[in-house]
């Protein structure tokens, strides 16, 4: 269920990218896509009634119902990269607005030399 929901988010993000030419909305769409993939990654490691993969006095067998810790480590990296790209995208969006006075890529397309 959660995987279907996360892929649905991915599709919503993709639809957003295809349907708008507004830079800010495009960056939000990319974020929604990344969110979908991140939820999907976490869902890969999910185990029903799982426990944290740490050996303690209560959980002392490696045969326990461990949650896969790797996807969670991956998702952290992926979130940070997503943040970096969003920040960079917004910086470019600001420069774009300063130069052309609009966020609409369709309008800018007809405005200039090439």
């Amino acid at each position, binding site marked *: 269920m959660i995987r279907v929901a996360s892929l649905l988010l991915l599709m919503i993000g993709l639809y957003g990218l295809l349907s708008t030419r507004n830079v800010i909305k495009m960056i939000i769409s*990319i974020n929604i896509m990344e969110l979908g993939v991140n939820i999907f990654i976490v869902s*890969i490691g999910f185990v029903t009634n799982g426990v944290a993969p740490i050996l303690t006095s209560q959980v002392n067998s490696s045969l326990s119902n461990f949650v896969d810790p*790797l996807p969670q480590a991956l998702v952290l990296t992926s979130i940070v990269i997503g943040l970096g790209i969003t920040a*960079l995208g917004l910086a470019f969006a600001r420069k774009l607005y300063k130069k052309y006075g609009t966020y609409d890529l369709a309008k800018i397309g007809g405005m200039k030399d090439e």
Partner: protein
Amino acid sequence: MNNPVLLIVIPLLLAFLSVIIKKAGKWLLLVGLLFNTALAFFITTGETIIGGFAPPYGINLVVDQFTLVGVILINTLMLITIVVSFDLVGKYSIVLLTALAGINGMLLTGDLFNLFVFMEITVIAAYILSAQAKKYHHTITYLVIGSVGSVLYLLGIILLYNLTGSLNMADVAAKLPLLTTKELLVPVLLIFIGIGVEVKLMPVSGWVKGVYSNANRLIAPLFASVIAGTALFVFGKLFVSVLPVSDTLTLLMLIMSVMTFVFGEFAAFNQKRVKNILLYSSIGQAGLVTALFISGLVYAAVILLISNVISKLIMFTIAGAFTEKYETDDYESLNGVFVHNKFTGIAFTIAALSMAGIPLLIGFYAKLNILIGFFQAQNYVLPAIILLMAIVEGAYIIKLLLALWAPGKEGQVSEKSFAVEKKQLLSVKNTIICLIVALVIIAGGVLIDITEKVVTDGQPLLGDQSPSFTISQSKGGE
């Protein structure tokens, strides 16, 4: 001392240093590049474990003959690009050093997720470099397409992780035969599209025109030969040794690659600006290289890749100089520009003719290898397409060279007075560097025994691939 991890770590360290010591940034960049290029010649094949966890749990760097060729080639090309356009580096030294680290990481890593991280480092640096032209809408288009590509690649490797339980390339490759084509269809195609954005495959190469055509003498060769070359090497590693897939998938990817090739070459034929011709030709050649990798002709693909990135380095540098000096790169308004710059013209011409596949240049040896390889595999459709496209390629290259060398319109007797006004395109130092690189193109084509030895070093490139055409073989046939 010759630990391959230094290729990644030293540029990163210098990048941090150049944040602190801003004034020395340019020189730190040069130090980093010289260090990397020198070290690239000394690293040996083998595996380096990072962080103390043995693979498949930990991350490792894998150096095989294929990677070694890539590391030496890409670091040298980047050094040449930066030395030629050292005056344009300015405040970009931090970004360039980060890109250098990312590029080496992409080439060396043996882990799929680690590849994603290094790819993002390189791509973010590339976004910033593409903004140099101040055409922010092109940069944003690149950023959007690039981000979608990254997301799809990430989804692909996660699906692969779900299927195989590993992200280590060698481990994934070992477990792949247990999976059916149906299971592999989605992850492999997602990875293909994700890498395809940087490789410039057709449906996702919409960003290329905006970014390449506005790039200057520094950025254009950096994109066209360094970053594109790295992406192609990574593509080869992934689709030859990690994900060698079955018939249906191969056919799908082959069709996309060949369509990119045909589209690129035809689009190049229709262009009026030098950079546009070159960028569409890059797209076309990238499609051909991926088609060769997917068909399993690794040696032919690597030779074509090498010949193409070296040619593009010279040509994009000179095309960048056109925009810099004449404020246009429309070849009709650059009539006879090489009459004033004969040596620059000679370097450009050698690079262009090598691309067209004229004998005695490395491009010819590349094309010969491709054709013989396909004929030996009894595949006759692709050689037909390649030869047909060679006519298109030859046509636009001759058209371009004629316009740049001969002053005057068609039907006029060409006289020096018809040429554009005299301006020095490249400084003496840069012309000499371009000529030396052009000499490498000639040497690579004439001394094919040495070319073969340098590229393969007697070892197979990713699997049992031997060159299809060698001197000894042709002598034996007589």
